[in-house]
Every structure is written in structure tokens, then in C-alpha cells.
């Protein structure tokens, strides 16, 4: 067993795109700040790549105390083996207490490999981080591990669990985008930038990057919206059970979104439940696309206002929206589980209620 007391600080693997930190990176920095402050530890941003000079201080502006930069032309493209090599080397030599990644394509792979290599645990898909004592009951008796990270994640699709890594360090997790609110960017924050020289064996570069190309960026920014109006399978029928054209519901949602934008001047988006997206409804083709999916397998969101129209609220959906400041549920079924977590409930027909809301907001209703 490792001696845990010599492990210090909360590390964040930082991702860069188009010359700035990605939004999920700034979110995870805020999450790291939260637990580091509880522990009296530092937040350390880890930057690996090429041409990082200009961006090296950015993690500090978003809450880090220190940035470790590994900058090399060899690391220009993301590749699992050399990146794992660099990070594992840092972990072994510098002994962080926690190491956080983003739960995206890169963070999941890299975090998993580094965790295995350094023989520690990995909690995936975390939506929150807390500091708690962990009590372990064994046949030999009860053991208390002081100040562990309770890594909160949806578990087995039916409940939320706290995952602990009590005996190993660093405690590693990947964090779902949308789980924390970034700290405001502040160039007056103080911190140091240190360079890390990695000597990577040439065999680590056996994979060849043949081509990299950008995809057209999605214009749907659910994570950044202040108001989200989401539709579920309830769009298929009205309260009397008559089939309706789901496109009609979508147009109402669009009008409501526009009315909210006009009145409040905030970013507003249309979301959808997994059930609606996977139904591949012809009328909604090209509109209700995967980028709109809210929930455990889609996006975790935390807007000021979340309106769930015709969404029954499976646990996977509720987990994805539970951080919203105000949840409004519109559903014809008073027993729908969505009402359990709604601040405001309307038992009724979305085909009546959406146009009414548009009208009340001064938009051109249905």
C-alpha cells in the first residue's frame, strides 16, 4: 500500500482548442478549486501538446495555482501512448492527490490508461466531487479513511452513487461536461508556470497520424444555454390521445425559445430526450439531432431554467438536468417521474401550454 500522506494537490488535465481552453476544462478547474480549497491544496493545470506558450497562463486565470506544461513538437497530435507516458511519468514523480479529466473522447481514454499504469482507481462520468471520510467495513474491523473524494456519478442507470478510491493515490476521475460552473476568467489571478521535459521513448510513436481534419462545429450549445426547452415523446399525442404532428410541437418550442431570447436576452436552446431522438421521427429529421440530447448518455446541463415538455423523466434524464436552477415540467400524466424533481409542475397538454407561454411572453403565439 502506498503512503497516502505525501500525495498533494488536485491536478486537471487541460484541453485546448482554437487557442483557448475548452469550456469543459474551465468547468473541471472550478470543480478542482472546490475540493482543493477544502483540503488546503493547490490546483494544478496540466497542459500537454505543442505551441502552448501563449496559453500556458490560461488555467491560472480560471482558478489554477500552478501550471505544468509539457510542450514538444512530438506531442502536436493527441496520441494515447506518448500522452499516457508523459502523464504517468509526472504522476509517479510529483505524486498528486487527485487527477481530474474531462469525460470526453480524449479524457476517458487518457485517464483510463494513466490510472491503470499508475495502479490507481478511476471513477468515470462524475457529476460532482465532495470531500468526505470513507468508512470501510471489513471482517477485520472498521477503518476510517479521512478526507477522501466522494466521486458522485450515476450508477447502473438507476441511482447515483459515491465512488471512493480510499487506498490508492491519486484519486482519479473524469467529469461530465456541464457539471461545474467555470470561475470567471480573471487575469489578476496569481500562479506559476513550470515546464516539464519529457523523454519519451521512440517506440511510443509507433502509431502514425495520417490525417486530422475538423468537422463543422455544432451550433447547438446546450451546455452554455441559460434556458433550455426540451421535448420528449409526449409530442406524439395530445392530451386526448389524438396523434399530432411533432413538427408542430417543435415549432412552438422554437417560438418559445425566440420569445425568451427577446424578453431576457439570454442564450436559449431546444433540447430533447433520448427517447425522442432514438425514435428517429421523420417530421423532426435534421431538427431533433443527437447534439440536442439531454441526459446521462447525452449532455449534462445546468441552465437557469429547464422546461421539460412531454418528457416523463427517466432517471437518466433526471440525472442530466438535476443541476438546473429551475425545472418546469409539462406532462399530461400527473404520475410522471419528472414531477418529482420539478420546481414547477403543469399537468396538461404541451400543445396548449407551449403556445400560451409564447403568448404570455409577448411572442407571436400559436
Amino acid at each position: 500500500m502506498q503512503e497516502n500522506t505525501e500525495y498533494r494537490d488536485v491536478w486537471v488535465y487541460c484541453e485546448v482548442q482554437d487557442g483557448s481552453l475548452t469550456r469543459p476544462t474551465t468547468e473541471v478547474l472550478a470543480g478542482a478549486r472546490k475540493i482543493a480549497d477544502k483540503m488546503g491544496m493547490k490546483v494544478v493545470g496540466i497542459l500537454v501538446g505543442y505551441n502552448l506558450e501563449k496559453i500556458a497562463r490560461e488555467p491560472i486565470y480560471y482558478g489554477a495555482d500552478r501550471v505544468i506544461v509539457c510542450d514538444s513538437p512530438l506531442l502536436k497530435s493527441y496520441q494515447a501512448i506518448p500522452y499516457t507516458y508523459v502523464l504517468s511519468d509526472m504522476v509517479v514523480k510529483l505524486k498528486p492527490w487527485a487527477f481530474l479529466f474531462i469525460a470526453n473522447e480524449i479524457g476517458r481514454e487518457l485517464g483510463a490508461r494513466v490510472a491503470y499504469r499508475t495502479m490507481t482507481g478511476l471513477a468515470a462520468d462524475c457529476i460532482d466531487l465532495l470531500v468526505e471520510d470513507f468508512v470501510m467495513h471489513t471482517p477485520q474491523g472498521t477503518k476510517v479513511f479521512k478526507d477522501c473524494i466522494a466521486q458522485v456519478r450515476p450508477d447502473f442507470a438507476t441511482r447515483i452513487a459515491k465512488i471512493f478510491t480510499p487506498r490508492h493515490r491519486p484519486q482519479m476521475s473524469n467529469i461530465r461536461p456541464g457539471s461545474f460552473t467555470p470561475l470567471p476568467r480573471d487575469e489578476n489571478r496569481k500562479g506559476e508556470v513550470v515546464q516539464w521535459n519529457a523523454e519519451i521513448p521512440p517506440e511510443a510513436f509507433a502509431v502514425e497520424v495520417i490525417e486530422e481534419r475538423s468537422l463543422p462545429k455544432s451550433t447547438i450549445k446546450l451546455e452554455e444555454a441559460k434556458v433550455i426547452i426540451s421535448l420528449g415523446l409526449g409530442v406524439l399525442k395530445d392530451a386526448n390521445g389524438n396523434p399530432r404532428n411533432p413538427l408542430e410541437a417543435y415549432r412552438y418550442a422554437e417560438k418559445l425559445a425566440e420569445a425568451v431570447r427577446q424578453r431576457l436576452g439570454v442564450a436559449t436552446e431546444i433540447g430533447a430526450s433520448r427517447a425522442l431522438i432514438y425514435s428517429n421521427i421523420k417530421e423532426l429529421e435534421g431538427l431533433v439531432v443527437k447534439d440536442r440530447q439531454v441526459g446521462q448518455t447525452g449532455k449534462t446541463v445546468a441552465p437557469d431554467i429547464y422546461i421539460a415538455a412531454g418528457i416523463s423523466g427517466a432517471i437518466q434524464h433526471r440525472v442530466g438536468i438535476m443541476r438546473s436552477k429551475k425545472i418546469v415540467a409539462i406532462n399530461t400524466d400527473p404520475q410522471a417521474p419528472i414531477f418529482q424533481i420539478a420546481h414547477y409542475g403543469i399537468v396538461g397538454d404541451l400543445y396548449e401550454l407551449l403556445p400560451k407561454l409564447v403568448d404570455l411572453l409577448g411572442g407571436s403565439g400559436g
Partner: protein
Amino acid sequence: MLIITLYKAVPARTTKIVTVGGVLRREEMDLVMNPFDYKAVEAADYLKRAFGGKVVSLTMGPDFKLKSIASNLFDAPVEGVDESYILSDRRMAGADTWATAYTVSLGVKKIVETHLSAVDELLSLLRSDGSAESFAEKARELYEKNLVPNAVYSTLPTLRGATLAERLLGGEISREEAVRLLEKIRKEVEKFIVIAGIKTSDGETGSTGPQVAEALTGMLGKFIPSVTYVRELEADPEAGNVYVERKLGDYIQKLRVPLPCVITISTDYRPRTPQLKLKKRARLYSYAKKVMDSVVWNADMLGADPQLIGLAGSPTIVGPGIDVGSPPVQKFVGKTLVFSNRVEEFEFNGKKYGPFERLAKADELPQEVLEHLKGRGLVKVFSLEDLVEELFGVRVSVAREH
């Protein structure tokens, strides 16, 4: 190609989950194959049809539960898998992704070693003074055990005269030539590929694929690449490479990946149609048959360190569950009683109440207090207009003027 697909049995229904202290009791639930793993079988099937080889399925869990799932894979989805291995041992239960990756990688290593030692047996026969007849006899035995491909020995009429054993018997090739050909076959086995789904429907971590690559890196003493979210897959087994395309956020990466490697297949993957010109090669490098009985290995047969498997080998521990609770205040349109205006602190039957803000919830006040307030027109039913006011800060009378 030796193609090893990993799959996992997951609970059939999320409503009937049996856990003890956060650990799934798979033996007590109805299990189905993880839906994400079908893509891995599809990709494996494509590689086999295009380039030859065999598809071996590998999983970990209680064997009496897994055998029926394993047998389904023999005819799914196109040609299906050829052999099935199940790692089953009570000591493996409760494994997190670390312990799972360790155990599964030992299984991968043992499968590869089994195939390598079959080729090695033949090589040592050739290198010793064994006759061509005894070589052919051994080749037939190993072929029937499904351990060497058609290129070595075959009963296929289309390959009559084309196998190594026949050519050696007929004096068409020398011993040295035969050794060279066998070494080439050995190399193909060494250059195996592990294919998995991108994640499971129960744990959803997506960690196991990359961790298997890392575990194999340690066990084989060389860097094993992992490529996740693969949406296109091609291979060049002669050169020992696969070509993949993966999506990383907003960009696409195309990679040449040397074998052996571990890839996870995205739900976007669609298998291509194998090229006809490769058909002969595919046939030569395919194996005799499907071995429909699952092979079950326990921890001892794998040579697993008991401290690194199951619950004991898992760095993470599942703690208590949390309920997704209700918000402190809930208001229902057309139902909840709220204050129609701000009400200053007041006394009723000697008790003090308030002050209350406009639209504050009044439901929880004692019945007689409510009646008193109702009588004075101070409470009303929460309306859609009130909701709009509270959510958006828009007094509806104002909105109407717009």
C-alpha cells in the same frame, strides 16, 4: 488474423437491478449482451471475412449465466464468432475497471499463447528430425483443434494441394521454406487485435478498452496502442497494420496503427463489403470450424494474482447511493395556493405568521389560517401567468402591452 472481441453481459432491465453494497449481483439477474458490443462483433466479423482469421469472444462473469449469451454469438450477426472463452471465478466478482482490465488481459494473453504454442509445436517438429508424415499428422491434429489455419492444413476441397502440410509431403517445398511460412503464420498470431464496444450500458465508463491496452502493455512488455470511438476500420495484415478513423470531439483522426492493438467501435461504424480479390487469402488464413462449447478459465488457470482480481484488486469502492431528491419548494399550476400579494407579518389565534412575498407558497399554513387569508383575497391558485412572472420576471399585464 486472431481477432478477440470483448463483450459484457449487462442487466436486461434497468428496473430489476440487484446490488449488494453497490456491487451488481449478476448471478441473480437476467442478463443480455451489452448492446454496444454488437458493433465490436460486426467489426470483427468484417475483418475475418475480408482477411481471414478467426473471431474469438472473451468475457468475464458467472459462466452458468454467460453460456447462453456466448452461444448466441456463434450465429450473430453475419458469420459470427468461432470460439468462446469465459473467465469465471467467484474471486473475480465485484471487479472495477482496473481489476477487469487485468483479468481480461490475462485471458487475451492466454488465448494468444495457446495459438502461438500450437505453431511452435509444428516449428519444433520441422526443426528436429521429424518426418513430413509426422508433421502432417500433428498439423491435422492442431487443425482439428482449431489452432492452426487452413494455410497449414485443411480439409477444404478448394484448398487441395495448397496447404503447407501437403506441399511439404509432396516435396514441393523444403523444410526451410516450410519454417519460413510457419514463422509468417506465427507473426500473424502475434499481431492479434482486440475489439470491444465503446462502453457498456450498465457502467457506461468506456474505461475498459484503454485499460486492457495498458494492461497488455505491462504483460507483453511493449506499447500496445488503444484507439477508441473507431468509426472506420481497414486492415493490412501482411504489413501488420490496421487503418482506423475515429472522432475526437470536433475533429476526425485517421491513424495507421501497428498490431497488436485494442480498438473500441463506435455506434457509427458500418462494416464494408470485403474485396473479392482478398478471398483466397481470407480462406487460407481461416480456421477449421466453430468450437461451440465455451472454454471456461478460472483465476488459477490464468495465473492471476488473487490480490489484483475481483473486489480485492479494485482500487475503487462504491459508496452509498444518493437519492435524486425533490426540490424544497414545488408549485403546481392550477393547484398550489400562493399569496396574491406581499403580506406583512400578522397574528392569527395568538400565533405570528409571515411576512410572505407575493407568490410564496401558502399550502402548508394551517387550514384556519388559509381560510382567513382566502376570505380576505390574499391567497389564490398559482396560475400560468404567475409561473411566467416568477420564471422570467415578466408581469403578464406588462407583457400584454407589448
